């Protein structure tokens, strides 16, 4: 349902403030939904038109249960699309609705302007609806169960993508222009010109040429360089039926669409929180609303010892950057200052803060954001620490407050949006058409039971044995799945074996 007159007035007002502050949004359409409708849309990941799949039903059951027991409540939902869609919960208080709207405009500006979103489909609402149609049509044609089984498989691989590949053209298109010398000159028997077509009949030379070409293809390394976009590799080389390709393609498209959101969680929420806080406190709030606003705002930014709240961290970082650039606390000269007290007190009254945070929101993602802008003073002020398991007691405890370690640990968990790096290194392993994957180990093992199940899914799609080289308890191992119904075998790699991973290649 569209907004009530009161909410519509608030929307106009807030949109005006957003413009005034320099936020640059897509047109933003708000919808007012009841709790169960909002839960439904949220279960679909924000897209009411998505393809049918049981996991949305599962998601809904959980949201519904959480809501009816009063454990969780969705305040808002906003979709990266042009126009941008945002959903408000009908039962929220007026002050919450205003807060949410201000927050939404922050997100919307971020979607539109952050570099990592540049390649996302801005007509995703329509595309999702198309995906829905495709899947439904396939279910009618091929049957529900085969399509569902295949979807499950694809979804279990949907983190095997390379978000950077949206910006880089790595693969050079094969050119037909220059056939190799061998192809040009197949083996011929010596013959005089007029006898040539008899001694070397056309069919025989063609056959020979085809054989040579085939061998050349077989000998070529596939892929030429290790590929992180496993899904695209499967699309190109796995023995898929036409309909399966369609399904895999759409799962891949959606994975790429969602990836930037996972890569910019801290920034995105920080930016939206920065703006709702700024707009609410400077423009929107009426005196009677202050207490409720403060209550809800602090609830959103609350921290717990073992968990980093992206809203909190993000807003604090943006505020810190604004402050530093306002006062000139940046650059080599500032960084090299020895006296901590002096360093803290620098104030050149430059007033560059606003411009700087707008620039930051355009060019950074969480990894570079944290890497560039967390500094010693900030880590201390935010009481950040590294925790870990104590060997003796087996309990979690605070290990260190050293800011370099804090940053290192954070970068580790943010890298590749918290997903393991998995590469296809060989699509024709041992020249038997087997698939060889390499997990670039960075200190943490894969969850073993999940890795096994995923490998089986991969094997089912590839239809030939699949191998995964990884580390388990500090040993290099090769997991092999011979066929999707068989058990996974596990073999330790000896040091003498040629490492097939990226390190060597």
């Amino acid at each position, binding site marked *: *349902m569209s907004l009530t007159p009161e909410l519509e007035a608030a929307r106009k007002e807030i949109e005006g403030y957003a413009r005034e502050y320099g936020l640059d949004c897509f047109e933003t359409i708000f919808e007012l*939904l*009841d709790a169960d409708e909002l839960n*439904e849309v949220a*279960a*679909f990941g924000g897209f*009411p038109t998505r393809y*049918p*799949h*049981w*996991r*949305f*039903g599962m998601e*809904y*059951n959980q949201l519904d249960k959480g809501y009816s027991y009063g454990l969780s409540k969705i305040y808002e939902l906003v979709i990266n699309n042009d126009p941008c869609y945002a959903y408000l919960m009908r039962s929220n208080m007026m002050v919450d609705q205003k807060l949410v709207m201000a927050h939404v405009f922050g997100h919307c500006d971020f979607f539109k302007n952050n570099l990592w979103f540049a390649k996302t489909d801005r007509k995703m609402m329509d595309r999702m609806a198309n995906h829905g149609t495709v899947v439904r049509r396939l279910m009618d044609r091929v049957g529900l169960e085969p399509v569902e089984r295949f979807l499950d498989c694809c979804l*279990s691989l*949907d*983190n095997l993508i390379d978000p950077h590949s949206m910006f880089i053209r790595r693969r050079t298109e094969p050119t037909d222009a220059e056939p190799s010398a061998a192809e040009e000159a197949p083996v011929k028997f010596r013959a005089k010109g007029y006898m040539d077509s008899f001694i070397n009949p056309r069919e025989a030379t063609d056959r020979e040429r085809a054989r040579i070409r085939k061998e050349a293809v077989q000998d070529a390394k596939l892929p030429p360089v290790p590929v992180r976009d496993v899904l695209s590799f499967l699309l190109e080389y796995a023995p898929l039926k036409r309909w399966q390709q369609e399904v895999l393609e759409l799962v891949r498209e959606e994975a790429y669409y969602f990836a930037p959101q*996972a890569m910019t969680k*801290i920034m995105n929420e920080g930016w939206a929180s920065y703006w709702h806080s700024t707009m609410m406190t400077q423009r929107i709030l009426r005196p009677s609303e202050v207490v409720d606003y403060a209550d809800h705002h602090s609830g959103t930014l609350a*921290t*717990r*010892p*073992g*968990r*980093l*709240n*992206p809203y909190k*961290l993000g807003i604090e970082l943006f505020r810190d950057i604004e402050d530093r650039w306002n006062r000139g606390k940046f650059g080599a000269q500032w960084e090299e200052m020895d006296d901590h007290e002096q360093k803290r007190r620098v104030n050149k009254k430059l007033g560059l803060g606003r411009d700087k945070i707008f620039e930051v929101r355009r060019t950074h993602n969480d990894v570079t954001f944290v890497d560039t802008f967390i500094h010693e003073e900030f880590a201390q002020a935010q009481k*950040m*620490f*590294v*925790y*870990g*398991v*104590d060997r003796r*007691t087996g*309990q*979690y*405890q*605070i*290990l260190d407050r050293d800011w370099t370690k*804090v940053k290192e*640990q*954070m970068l*580790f*968990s*943010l890298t590749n*949006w*918290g*997903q*393991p790096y998995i590469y296809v290194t060989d699509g024709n392993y041992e020249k038997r058409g087997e698939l060889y994957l390499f997990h670039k180990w960075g200190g*943490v*093992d*894969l*969850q073993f039971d*999940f*890795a096994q*199940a*995923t490998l089986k899914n991969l094997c089912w799609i590839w239809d030939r044995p699949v191998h995964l080289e990884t580390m388990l308890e500090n040993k290099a191992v090769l997991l092999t799945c011979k066929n999707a119904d068989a058990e996974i075998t596990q073999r330790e790699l000896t040091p003498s074996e040629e490492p097939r991973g990226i390190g060597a290649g």
Partner: protein
Amino acid sequence: MSRDARLSVRKIDRDRNRFHEIVRGKIKQDLKKYVSHHELLGRKGGNIVSIPMPQIELPHFRFGPNPKGGVGQGDGNPGDPMQEGDGEGQAGEGAGQHSLEVEITLDELAKILGDELELPRIQPRGNNQLPMKGGRYTGLKPTGPESLRHFRRTYRRALLREIATGTYDPDDPVIIPIRDDKRYRARRDVMVPDFNAVIIYMMDVSGSMGKEQKDIVRTESFWIDTWLRSQYKNIETRYIVHDAAAKEVDRETFYHLRESGGTKISSAYELCARMIESQFPPEQWNIYPFHFSDGDNWSGRDTERCVKLLNDVLLQKANVFCYGQVRSAYGSGQFKKDLDRAFEDDPRVITSDIADRDGILGSIRSFLGTGR
């Protein structure tokens, strides 16, 4: 929109139904596991049980628990412990890991059990038929209030009549029903069978029945209960425990009591017979006595007495008599052999041997597979 959305089928419902189907499928697959572990009983609340089901999640290549830990915010010095449960999840990580539980009603569970064990629907005794109150509007009649007029049928009859009488004009297809054409929805009384059933559980609580044996009995009776409840609307359960003497107890006591003494099975059968005679006339009741023991009776004489009691009273009145013998370290298991010999060809007596937890499913099948 909201009003319409509620009236029409919501999009999410299709996915929910599918999810539910998948859950049912998984339960079916692992029924043996669920049946032989009695965790379910503890989880029972009202008519719904919730079942842990981690394997339904879509697997991914993802990190296992990080031995290095993560980053947090707050007070405390290095070396201070953090509160329990704080350590889950890392910054930037998506959904936290939580065990997934699905809810299912007991009726559905019974249906799954029935499907999987291929249990026949039970043929109730007697033929009491009661008209159900407030039947459904599935019939038609030529009179009635206008509010119940069946538009399509009325229209069709009017159309037929107009065509038959030649007053129908295809260029100006106006149909005017007359009184004769009108049809009204009518209520049809639905006859439903009305039966009662009573399950009488008897358990040997003599010294030789250990905790494990009692747990097996407890689990098995839960499933028998679940199945029979799905077959009858009104069901009573009674519990009898016995060692050398028998007494009626409540459910709680039945499962937790541990006596130690000799075993005189006839005492339980006697009490059961008296109970049936005084409270459950077989014309009105379907009677299911179940007896669980480790098969170690006091004496051969008592066993003879049991056989006589079965022949003279229990088998006359009960639908079927079921004896489950739980294997224990001390029991000789003689009683089952004696029963089998005495009632060799009698389909009314079903005995089964439950070696361990995994035997529960088979035992249920032999008890309930006859559909009596």
